[in-house]
Structure formats: structure tokens, C-alpha cells
């Protein structure tokens, strides 16, 4: 069959059964819109937490009265670790000065403390890819074993909370996307099946006149693709409307919304995703039908 004729048949069917097709398209739109919204939220949480690890540091407390050579030895040993981005030595004097500066509005806290109780320490910044409660815990255990190190302190609660939030949002997003994508495929599958049964007399005539399965299938595949693409396009438009009519407008009164990012280059693929899901549903339906 010539491709234009397959498109003509698909267009005729789309117009003839416009209400079924419109309903399917709206269902696909709703599914893709929810997926996009979940992704939008995950993307913003991910972006907002992306720079948090740079503010995170591990503090390595050194034993008292360690010679300069031994301190340098510890610094070299820590810096040699792959996970470590930088190491800064903080002498006990500098640490005490900083503590005093921090507590300058509450000097009574340090009243009666004449000797510096703080130890020398190292401020260790980690590489971004080493972030995560497990790798940081392993690193701290290794550093603890270095001679001259008395204690290692790191924000384990902060790290694990951050990790849990990101993982939770990602997992929910993936599950939601999987369920809704399956739903979209099922909608296309059911639509094509209904349209197929409605046209069964016509299809029987096609067959008796010598039509191949390809001739019979092509318009349905095109129809599935069209419904999916339309659903994808509508969800793309809806996401842009959400960004321009809700997020950007709210940003003028609520500063938080100024930092909300809109991944337009990713949402651009929504019509293609719709096409793929539409074709998949149609192909599965045609594969299961006996004709």
C-alpha cells in the first residue's frame, strides 16, 4: 500500500471515531502531564541539592602535640585518597579564634576557659562523586586508622537525609512513570482494539480482496502514533502554560519560585515519547488480534 493511502485511511478513522480518539488523547495527555510534573519536581530537587555537597566537609581531629612532620604525614595520607578533593590544616589556635569569633555575642560560654581545649584538625572536602553516606563512612573508617588521627567527624545525618530524599523522589518518580506509561500503552491498545472491531467488516473485505497484514495494520499504527503524539504535544503545551502562567507569575510574589528551573530541552521530547507509547500500544493490540 502506498503510504499516502495509509495516512488517508488513518485520517478518515480519526475523524470518523473522533470522540473515542479525543478521549484517548486526553487520557494520554493526563498521564504524560503527571509524569512531566513528577520529573519537574525531581529535577528541581536534584538541582537544588546539587551544590549542597560542596558545603559539606569532613573534620579530622589530630592527636595532641603532633610534630609538624607527622601532621604533614597525615595530610599526605588523607590527600592520597581518591575521594578527597582538598585538605586544609586548621591549627588549634585558629580553631579557638574562630570559636571565639562565632561566640562573640555569647562570651559567657567561654568564661573560665583559659587553656585552648581544641585540637589541631584537618578540614577535608570531598569530591562530588564520593558523596553518599556509605562511601563517606568507609572513608572516615580508613582515615581513623591513620597514625596521628584521634577522631573523624562528618555530617552523617545530613548526608543520609539528603541521600534518602533524592532516592525517595527518584524511586517514586520511576514507579509513577512506569505505571502511567503502562497505562498510556494500555489506553492506545484498547483504543486500537475498539477501532479494529468497529471496522471488522471493512477489514474482512480488505482481506478478501487480497490485502496483506501490513496493509491492514498500517492505518492503525499511524492512528496510534497520531493519538500518542497529540497527547504528548498537549502535555508539552500544558507544561509550558504551567511554567509561564503559574511558576513565573508566582515568582513575582514568592521569591522561592525564582529558583525553580524549567527543563524545556527535556520536555521537548514529550511528543516523541507520546508517539512511541502510541505506536507500542497499537502494535501490541494488532499483534494480539486474530484477523
Amino acid at each position, binding site marked *: *500500500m*502506498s503510504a499516502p*493511502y495509509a495516512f488517508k485511511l488513518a485520517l*478518515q478513522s480519526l475523524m*470518523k471515531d473522533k470522540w473515542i480518539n479525543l478521549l484517548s488523547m486526553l487520557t494520554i495527555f493526563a498521564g504524560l502531564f503527571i509524569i512531566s510534573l513528577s520529573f519537574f519536581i525531581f529535577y528541581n530537587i536534584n538541582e537544588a541539592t546539587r551544590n549542597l555537597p560542596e558545603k559539606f566537609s569532613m573534620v579530622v581531629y589530630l592527636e595532641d602535640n603532633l610534630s609538624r612532620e607527622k601532621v604533614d604525614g597525615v595530610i599526605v595520607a588523607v590527600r592520597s585518597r581518591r575521594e578527597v578533593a582538598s585538605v586544609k590544616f586548621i591549627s588549634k589556635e585558629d580553631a579557638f579564634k574562630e570559636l571565639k569569633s562565632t561566640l562573640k555575642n555569647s562570651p559567657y560560654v567561654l568564661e573560665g576557659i583559659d587553656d585552648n581545649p581544641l585540637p589541631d584538625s584537618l578540614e577535608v572536602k570531598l569530591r562530588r562523586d564520593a558523596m553518599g553516606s556509605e562511601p563517606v563512612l568507609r572513608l572516615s573508617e580508613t582515615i581513623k586508622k591513620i597514625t596521628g588521627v584521634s577522631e573523624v567527624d562528618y555530617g552523617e545525618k545530613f548526608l543520609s537525609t539528603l541521600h534518602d530524599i533524592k532516592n525517595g523522589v527518584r524511586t517514586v518518580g520511576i514507579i509513577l512513570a512506569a505505571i502511567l506509561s503502562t497505562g498510556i500503552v494500555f489506553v492506545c491498545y484498547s483504543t486500537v482494539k475498539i477501532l479494529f472491531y468497529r471496522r471488522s467488516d*471493512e477489514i*474482512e*473485505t*480488505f*482481506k*478478501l*480482496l*487480497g*490485502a*496483506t*497484514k501490513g*496493509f491492514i495494520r498500517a492505518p492503525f499504527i499511524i492512528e496510534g502514533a497520531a493519538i500518542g503524539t497529540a497527547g504528548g504535544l498537549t502535555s508539552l503545551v500544558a507544561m509550558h502554560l504551567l511554567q509561564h502562567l503559574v511558576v513565573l507569575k508566582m515568582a513575582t510574589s514568592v521569591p522561592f519560585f525564582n529558583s525553580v528551573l524549567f527543563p524545556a530541552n527535556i520536555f521537548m521530547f514529550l511528543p516523541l515519547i507520546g508517539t512511541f507509547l502510541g505506536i507500542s500500544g497499537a502494535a501490541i493490540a494488532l499483534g494480539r488480534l486474530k484477523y
Partner: protein
Amino acid sequence: MESAGPMIHFQNVSKEYESQTALHDITLSVEKGEMVFLTGPSGSGKTTLLKLIYLAEMPDHGSITIAGWEATELRESSIPFVRRNIGVVFQDFRLLDNRNVFENVSLALRIRGVGEREIKTRVADALKTVNLRHKADSYPRRLSGGEQQRVVIARAIVAEPTVLLADEPTGNLDPDTAHDVLRTFKDIHAKGTTILIATHNRELYRNSGKRIFRLHAGSLLGEEVC
């Protein structure tokens, strides 16, 4: 496999529907370029025999050869290509009501992948053969029974099949229109097409000089020349 021999050959063919015998031990041959009639009362198995030829059904026993192809050995994917050698005038017409006469007739060519320009020429020729060129834009429901019958004939012949099957082609027609339809078949036959007409209308084959196969209760009673 394709081989030389008669255009249609049935060898000890039987067919049952839910334990009801539709055809029993049929053996017959139709030569290339021959025009034959198949007759018998309603329910005698005429339509079933035609369905076996255009591969809408498969036999339970026996073998069927059509244009050199052994029906029972065909793969499912090959059936459409064998059907393209066969034009069928269905008893229930099978016209698509949402398409006009031109589109209905052109369907047989579109299925074969014929180009748009050639479709226009060939459909016009086929409609001219059945005297319906002026009705090309009409929809089937606006046509009389005789006109619909002729549209079906045009659709059956437009792709120039090697075999033409007609199932009660004059069943709904008045005697004059039936005579016109028969004349159309004779014209098509004159061009070398093998034709098998199933009918219980004796007027159609009386004094035709053609072979007649008589069916009764699914069995072939014999053949004669009228």
C-alpha cells in the same frame, strides 16, 4: 507449489461446519479460460465451494489447486497474493458504504499497490464495462440493487484477475438486468478470464453451451453441458 494444470481443481474435498457436512468428497476441474456454472438449491454448498476457492475457508479433507497453487500447503502470508489472482462477486456485495463507487472499485488496485494515475484509468475502464461511469461519485446506498451488483463486478474485474467467481450474481435482479450482467460476464470471459458462476437461476445458464456442476446437500451430483 505452482505447477501446470487446470485453473481450479478439487480432489476429494470435504468440508464440515460443527459436524454438519457442507461439502462431501467433491472432485472437479475447471480449465483455464473456461466459463462454468455451479448450481443447486439453497444450502447445497455452492457458497462454501466458492469460499474454498478464494481461501476464506480451508478443506477438512482433500486437496484444492488454484492457478497452480496448492491451497492446503499455502503459508498464511502467501494467501493475500493468491487471492489477488481471484476476483469475487460476493453474494452480499461487501461494498463499503462510507466510500463512493470509485473508491470501492479502486480498493482492489490500492491493495495491489497500483499508482494513482493508473488507478484512475483502470477504474474508469472497469466502470465503463459495467456501464456505471456516470455513478463514480455515488455512494452504494444511493444505488439500486442492480447497480450495486455491477459495482461489485467492476471491483472484481478491475485488477484483471485470472479467475472470476460470482456467487448468485443475479439473485436480486430483474430479468433484464440479470441478462445485462450475464452479458458482462461473457465479455469478460471473451478476454480469457476463467469464470465460475454459482447460481440457482436456470435462465442464466440455459442454452449457454457451458458446463454445469450440480450440487445437492454438499455432494456433486454430476456435470452436464446446457
